[in-house]
Structure formats: structure tokens, C-alpha cells
């Protein structure tokens, strides 16, 4: 049956090639969306995931740093430090700001942190070092690549020139990239020296986290305290709410297009070979043979599409990342397996749709 199906398909090589190309592009689209989502998801929350703080303190109206506005006074940090079990408190200020260089401008999500506390800075430095002084900046790797910026060069933020001393990884959130300066510089840029977005709190080993959280809320009014895991989940959820519907919608369109292409080809094949199917039925083909041929054709095309897509995918992604470095992807075997599973499921659906045509083919047609 499979050899008949393969021969029927290869009997029309151009049509087969166009169909496999269409299906493989749909698969590439799905793979790319998944990989881009994971790239963004990791890039957006890696900063939080790799942070060593035990507690995050924000204004009570904000539960994440991706889409929340929190305004705190750095003076309150000293009050938290006095709580039993607290080891250290570090203020971090986030602001969206423009960066200029040689007539180019771009926006970054600037994180001002205390270099001495070594908390709230870049999660991974892949080149150079972290910031030590107020005239220094660390840029995201993809951002630096996109704007062709390298260590030792200077960028302008407002009227201040900052030297690039480091390049970080895991700090690309697709629509925005992180950059890092000292807390003092960030406060100076915003114009309010005593302001922070959040406090990062580390605790003594064995300290009672819940009691410390309650203590912080008693000492500083209008704040909410999150343990590390909860805060990470909050940010992931925020990302999913904002980004996943878009991914799902485009991926669903890809799946529908794939199913439509496959169903169309199978239906055309059935209609063109209607007489063959009638002959099979007359000659006493076993139950399921004719529908099995449709399913096997569908599976063969899907499989060819998957192989073509996987062959095409990595060079294509490398090319896209080279042309648009801010698009950062993370591809895993799990994602590929999931996409292949979806494609195979859709190939079964396409077969079932196309098989409706078989009902209208009668053995008697072999005699007409």
C-alpha cells in the first residue's frame, strides 16, 4: 500500500514538490514561532531566574517587572535591613530610555543596580565585565550586534556618554533589550536620586521567609513582597498573557494552511485517480485498503515536509538571527517533537477530510 501511495505521489513530481515545500514552510513557521517564544521567554525572565535574591519588594500595585510600574524610596531599604533575618537589601531602578550612537537611536530597558552589592546586575556576561563606575554600561549581546556596538565604544544616554564595558546574554526580550548601569547613574538619568523600582532582599540561612515578608510589609507601607519562585512565575505569566495568544494565533493559521494544502492535494489525487480507486474496489481490495492509501499518502507527504522543514530550519534561523539579531530563538528536541506530532495529527485530519471523497466513488465506475 505504501509503495502504491509513494508511486502515485511521485507520478506528479512538480505537484509533490510544491506541496512538500508548502507544508515544510508551515512547519518552519511553527518551529520558528515556538523557538522565538522560548527565546523571548528565557530572555525576558532570565534576569529574574538567575537573580540570587530571596525576596522581591515592589509597590503593591506591581507584581512583575515586565509590565508593572513600581515606585519605592531607597530610604526604605535601610528600614528593611533592620529586620531580623535579613542579610542584605539592594535597590534596583528600571526605566525605559533611549540610547544614541552616531545618529542611530534605540530604546533599552535600563536596570540601575548597586555594583558593590552584586545583585540585580546582568545575569551572564559573555564579553568584558560588569559595570563598576557611573560612566559605564553593559549592553545586551543581540542589541550590541544589531547596532554594531562593541566594547570600548561609547553610547549617549540623554547628555551622558557611557562606555560599553560588558556584553550580557539572556537579556533579550524581543521587543526590548536590557542594559545595565549603576543605580546612581539610573537615578540621575530619571532625575530623582532617591527612587527605586524594587528592593532585592537576601536572607540569612534558615531565616523564616514568611516572617520576614510580614516584617517588611509592616515596616514599609504600600509594598508587596514576593519570594523568588512566585515572582518568577508572575513574570512568566505576564509574558504568556501578552505574547502567547499572538504565537498561538499565528501557529494556528500555520496549522490550518498546512491542513488545507494537504487536504487539497489528497482530494485532487483522489478525484484524478477516481477510476483507479473504483478498480481497487472492484478487484476486491481489502477493507481499509483504499482509505489506507489516502492516509499513507498524507503521512508520506507530512514526513517529507518534516524532513525538508528540519533541513531548512537551522540555516534559515541562522540567517534570520544574523539579519535581525534582536530575534533570539531557543530550539529544543521537545519543540521539534511537538511540532512533528501536530503535523502528523493534522495529516490524519487531512486524510479524514479527503476520505469523504472516497464515499462517492463506486466500484461500478470501473465499468462505465
Amino acid at each position, binding site marked *: 500500500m505504501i*509503495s*502504491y501511495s509513494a*508511486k*502515485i505521489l511521485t*507520478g506528479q513530481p512538480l505537484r509533490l514538490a510544491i506541496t512538500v515545500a508548502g507544508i515544510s514552510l508551515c512547519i518552519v513557521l511553527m518551529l520558528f514561532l515556538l523557538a522565538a517564544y522560548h527565546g523571548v521567554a528565557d530572555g525576558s525572565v532570565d534576569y529574574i531566574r538567575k537573580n540570587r535574591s530571596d525576596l522581591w519588594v515592589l509597590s503593591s500595585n506591581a507584581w512583575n517587572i515586565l509590565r508593572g510600574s513600581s515606585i519605592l524610596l531607597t530610604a526604605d531599604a535601610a528600614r528593611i535591613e533592620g529586620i531580623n533575618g535579613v542579610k542584605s537589601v539592594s535597590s534596583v531602578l528600571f526605566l525605559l530610555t533611549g540610547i544614541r550612537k552616531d545618529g542611530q537611536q534605540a530604546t533599552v530597558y535600563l536596570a540601575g543596580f548597586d555594583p558593590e552589592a552584586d545583585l540585580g546586575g546582568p545575569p551572564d556576561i559573555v564579553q568584558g565585565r560588569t559595570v563598576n563606575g557611573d560612566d559605564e554600561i553593559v549592553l545586551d549581546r543581540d542589541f550590541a550586534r544589531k547596532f554594531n556596538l562593541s566594547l570600548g565604544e561609547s553610547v549617549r544616554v540623554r547628555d551622558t556618554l557611557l562606555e560599553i564595558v560588558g556584553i550580557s546574554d539572556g537579556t533579550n526580550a524581543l521587543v526590548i533589550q536590557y542594559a545595565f548601569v549603576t543605580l546612581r547613574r539610573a537615578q540621575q538619568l530619571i532625575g530623582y536620586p532617591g527612587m527605586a523600582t524594587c528592593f532585592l532582599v537576601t536572607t540569612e540561612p534558615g531565616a523564616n521567609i514568611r516572617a520576614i515578608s510580614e516584617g517588611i510589609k509592616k515596616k514599609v507601607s504600600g509594598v508587596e513582597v514576593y519570594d523568588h519562585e512566585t515572582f518568577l512565575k508572575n513574570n512568566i505569566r505576564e509574558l504568556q498573557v501578552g505574547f502567547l495568544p499572538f504565537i498561538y494565533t499565528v501557529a494556528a493559521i500555520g496549522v490550518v494552511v498546512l491542513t488545507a494544502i494537504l487536504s487539497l492535494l489528497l482530494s485532487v489525487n483522489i478525484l484524478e*485517480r477516481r*477510476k*483507479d480507486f473504483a*478498480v481497487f474496489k*472492484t*478487484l*476486491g*481490495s*481489502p*477493507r481499509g*485498503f483504499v482509505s489506507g492509501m489516502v492516509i499513507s499518502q498524507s503521512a508520506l507527504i507530512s514526513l517529507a515536509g518534516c524532513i525538508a522543514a528540519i533541513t531548512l530550519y537551522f540555516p534559515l534561523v541562522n540567517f534570520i538571527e544574523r539579519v535581525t539579531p534582536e530575534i533570539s530563538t531557543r530550539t529544543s528536541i521537545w519543540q521539534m517533537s511537538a511540532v512533528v506530532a501536530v503535523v502528523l495529527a493534522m495529516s490524519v485530519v487531512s486524510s479524514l477530510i479527503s476520505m469523504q471523497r472516497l464515499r462517492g466513488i463506486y*466500484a*461500478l465506475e*470501473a*465499468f*462505465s
Partner: protein
Amino acid sequence: MRSAADPCSYVVLKNVSKTFLDGDQKVHAVRDACLVASPGELIVLLGPSGSGKTTLLTLIAGLLSPTSGSLSLFGQSLTSYSNGDLQSMRAKRIGFIFQNFLLIDSIPVVENVAMVLRFSGRGRSDALARARELLDQFGIGYLARKLPSALSQGEKQRVAVARAIANNPELIIADEPTASLETNQGFDIIRLLHDYARQERRCVIVATHDLRIADLADRVLRVVDGRVRVQCPQDQAKEVYPGRPVA
């Protein structure tokens, strides 16, 4: 017409009628047909287009059920066969030759022949070996790997016969097998079928409007307006088309 059915008869039709609905109109494709087909004979159903020959063949093949009358295949009433039984019977006990042969164009000749063997339950390698053997017997072993589209009409004809007899079926049903052939090729195919019927003690039923092949038939049945009206010897075949010579 033979009235008493030999218990060994492959096909027994008693007053079989088949009516189709064409809108509100009833079309009587076959009316009160009686027929007994036994091993070792080649029967020709002779009649013009639209006379009901093909409907009769499809009834005999179990592809249609009669509207009235009774039809027995291989000693068993058609109504007693399940769909699965009918499928299995067509695969194992009936061979088919279609008008224009209807070989499957996308697969090689050898697989066209092997296909029916596979349908009857043989393994792939066994089926292919038997198919090659048959093609050799018919002197067309060299065509095994060719696609049917590359074959001449005469070559297609031999492949079609090889496919029909691959399972050594008791009954062969042939629908206008000489329609697209020259006279000699037409005679060749009927001669092959005749030999098969005689040598293997099988039954062959051929529907045709081709008077030329009547000479080779054991029996010629005249089909007019759905009625199997006359069981005529070969020399009476010309009655079907008065004024036309019998080849």
C-alpha cells in the same frame, strides 16, 4: 436458455431484474434475466450499448443487488454474502477485465498483476514472483518494470488478462474487452480466455457488442432492452444486429 441449474454452476440468475431511479422515472436496466454459467464455458453477452449487458455483469460480480429475482454465486445466494464475503470473493474467485483494461498507470506492470494476488492475501514477495511468472507465460516478462502508459494496446491486453487470471479464479468477467483493439488483437484476447475456460475448467462471461468474437463463444446470449432474450448459437448472433455481417 438453460433452466436447470447444475449444482456446480458458478452463476445462477432466476428472473433477475434491476431497476434504477432516474429522477421520478424508473429505468429497467435488466428485466427477468435467467442465466446459468458453469465451469468450462465461455459465454458472450451480445447487445448494443445501453442494452443492460454491463448491469448484468455487475450483478453477476455482486457489485449490485437485484431489485427482484434470485442470484446465486458459487452455489450460494447473493443475499447470504456479507460485504466482507463479497470483497473476498471478488479478490479470490472472480477475475475482471475492463473496457480499456484500466491498468493502474502509476505502478509498474508487475505490480498491477501482483496487486490482485495481494488482495487475495498473498505476501508481497510471493505475489511479485507469481506475477513475474505469469508475465513470462504470456511472453511479456520484459515489460514487468514498465509503466502501463508505455505499453501498446496489445501489450496492455495481455497484462489485463494476466491480472484477471492471476488468482486462477473460477469466474472471469470481461466488459467489452475488445473495444479498443484491432480485429486480430480482439481474437487473441478471446482465444486466451477461451483456452483458459477450457483448460482450467473455469467460466468466462464476456459482455460485448462486437459480433466478430461470437464465433469463439460456447454460448451467445442476446441482451436487448435489459432482457436476455435468446440463447442463440453463434450463427444466430447476426439476429442481434440484423443486416450486419458476423465476423
